[in-house]
């Protein structure tokens, strides 16, 4: 992990323009991602957590250039891909793949499982013959714990967990170095969730994969990630190595997120400070610290001045005036 990072994201911004009327005049701006920086090393998992609407999925998609960034740079192995043209980008796409949340809507129901997994091989002209590709697909099936004879089945014949395995096999097909996992287990039952998390961990150990693991379930992130970034309204508000973050959260938002997680132990009755209200509208964000409207400790300064992400302990960053 100490080597040069595989992925380096700096000051990434993605704003969506809201248009209105016949001539499409700009009526507003959604600051979905607003100045996010992080890096991911080889065989490392970076967890990205936050409530819905905080911009975590947009980060994942922008990093892959499925969305074009408004500003900022994305370096993959030292090459900036943030403004690269589609043709130049194509070979680099092989190094970066994505696994989606919903294994039901992310697989084409009319394609056979083997063709879904092998599609990228044909697109990128990997393997000389059809049978080469077929053999590679069979290998991928066994990597993710599916049977070879299932290559001829259609997605509806698979259970949710198996479909997610198909998604993983497809993402692995081009030997990527980094996989963006966008809520990969949140649609699955706990017993199946455990199977998929273990599979992801095994694949990481076997192939040295790096993951950007986007999730809202903090317990899952704590289990799988090495470092964790907490996002709120388009910005990273806290960033730390896993153990540090979960044992010594500094930002009040992280604190309340951790407090809100239900504990599967009825003997623990914790008294919590409930976070009130919902995430504010990203079109019209609060001034100063975006979190001040819900923060139990907010002071006058928080309403006016924006806090910057600063080091509060070695390797531990937090954006809060009070720390």
């Amino acid at each position, binding site marked *: *992990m100490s080597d040069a990072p595989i992925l380096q994201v700096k000051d990434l911004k993605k704003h969506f323009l809201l248009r209105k009327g016949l001539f499409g005049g700009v009526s507003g701006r959604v600051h979905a991602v607003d100045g996010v920086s992080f890096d991911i090393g080889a065989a490392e998992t970076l967890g990205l957590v936050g*409530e*819905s609407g905080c911009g975590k999925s947009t980060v994942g998609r922008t990093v892959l250039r499925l969305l074009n960034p408004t500003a900022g740079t994305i370096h993959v192995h030292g090459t900036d891909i943030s403004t690269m043209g589609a043709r130049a980008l194509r070979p680099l796409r092989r190094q970066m793949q994505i696994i989606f949340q919903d294994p039901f809507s992310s697989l084409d129901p009319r394609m056979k499982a083997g063709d879904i997994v092998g599609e990228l091989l044909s697109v990128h002209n990997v393997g000389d013959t059809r049978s080469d590709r077929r053999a590679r697909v069979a290998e991928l099936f066994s990597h993710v714990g599916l049977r070879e004879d299932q290559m001829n089945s259609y997605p509806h014949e698979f*259970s*949710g*967990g*198996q479909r997610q395995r198909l998604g993983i096999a497809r993402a692995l097909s081009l030997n990527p170095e980094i996989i963006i996992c966008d809520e990969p287990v949140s649609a699955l*039952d*706990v*017993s*199946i*969730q*455990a*199977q998929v*998390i*273990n599979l992801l*961990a095994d694949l990481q*150990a076997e192939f040295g994969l790096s993951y950007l693991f986007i999730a*809202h*379930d*903090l*317990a*899952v992130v*704590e*289990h*799988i990630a*090495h*470092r964790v970034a907490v996002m709120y309204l388009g910005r990273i508000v806290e960033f730390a*190595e*896993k*153990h540090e973050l*979960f*044992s010594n959260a500094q930002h009040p938002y992280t604190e*309340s*997120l*951790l*407090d*809100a*997680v*239900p*504990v*599967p*132990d*009825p*003997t623990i009755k914790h008294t*919590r400070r*409930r*976070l*009130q209200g*919902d*995430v504010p509208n990203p079109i019209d964000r609060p001034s100063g610290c975006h979190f001040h409207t819900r923060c139990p400790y907010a002071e006058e300064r928080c309403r006016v001045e924006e806090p910057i992400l600063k080091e509060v302990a070695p390797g531990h960053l937090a954006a809060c005036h009070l720390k």
Partner: protein
Amino acid sequence: METNSQSPEVVLDVDNLTTEFQTPEGLGRAVDGLSFNINKGETLGIVGESGCGKSITALSILRLVPSPPGNIAGGSVRLGNRDLMQISEREMRDVRGNDISMIFQEPMTSLNPVLTLGYQITETLRRHEGLAKHEATARAIEMLALVQIPAPERRVKEFPHQLSGGMRQRAMIAMALSCNPRVLIADEPTTALDVTVQAQVLDLIKDLQERLGTAVILITHDLGVVAETAQRVIVMYAGRKVEEAPVESLFANPQHPYTRGLLASVPRLGATTGAHSSDSRPARLAEISGIVPPLTEIPSGCAFAPRCKQATEKCTAAQPPLEETEHPGHRVACWHTDKVAV
């Protein structure tokens, strides 16, 4: 506690409920001889994976199972001195939303997008309590205030899309509780919500339950939610009850291999903190191998046997009965509890 002489007041008594579905592959039992009861003011958690029959149980109690293909094949659901399975559809309509009401997982799809919140809340009030329009509206505003929706006078005139997910779920709760039901069935009420909002909604349900004395059936797959909210828990697998216990006893001494598997497969917050250095591989989560069998292929013996590490010939041969354990009120359906309990 339940074996005590001074028994608490039972509001709903479900006995041997069986619901079947006609599928292209044949007849499948979604709920297979399920029995349980719930007391006034109690929260009963029903847990299990998708496809184990939790939601169909709820729909069967309210007789809302789509028919065909579904059919309530047997059993009784006693509310007070009436058996809901025997009364007419007309009488049943007086029960729904009045004596028993339900909140669903996805508040956007279960609210009508073209009607105002006020209309949707007052609909039940006017139907069941015969209130005039302005009285009903006043009550609706009161209910919205009760579920802590800010500016209820304004919200009452708004449409569902104008509310956030958490607010919609609050509005659903307001609607469900407007007629002061004896039983509230909450089917995955917080699954679609963020943790912070989930915590708010669970607090709200608990708080209202204490004030109104409603019995709550909480259907969820989240063991954390159950641990924090329920007093008693039923674990379901393939349409059957495999374990039933007071919540403390279930988490302290899970008896059924399936329950143990579920508990072990949940990643826990703080489980890894300080345990080992950062770059070591994460510990493996316990898995339950395999998947829930489809309805038409439920094994004849113990339904969990094909996924169970302890399974023996006896398990595939005969279905284990639900038996009392050494812990009071704790019942389990497993042939090998002696082996499991380590």
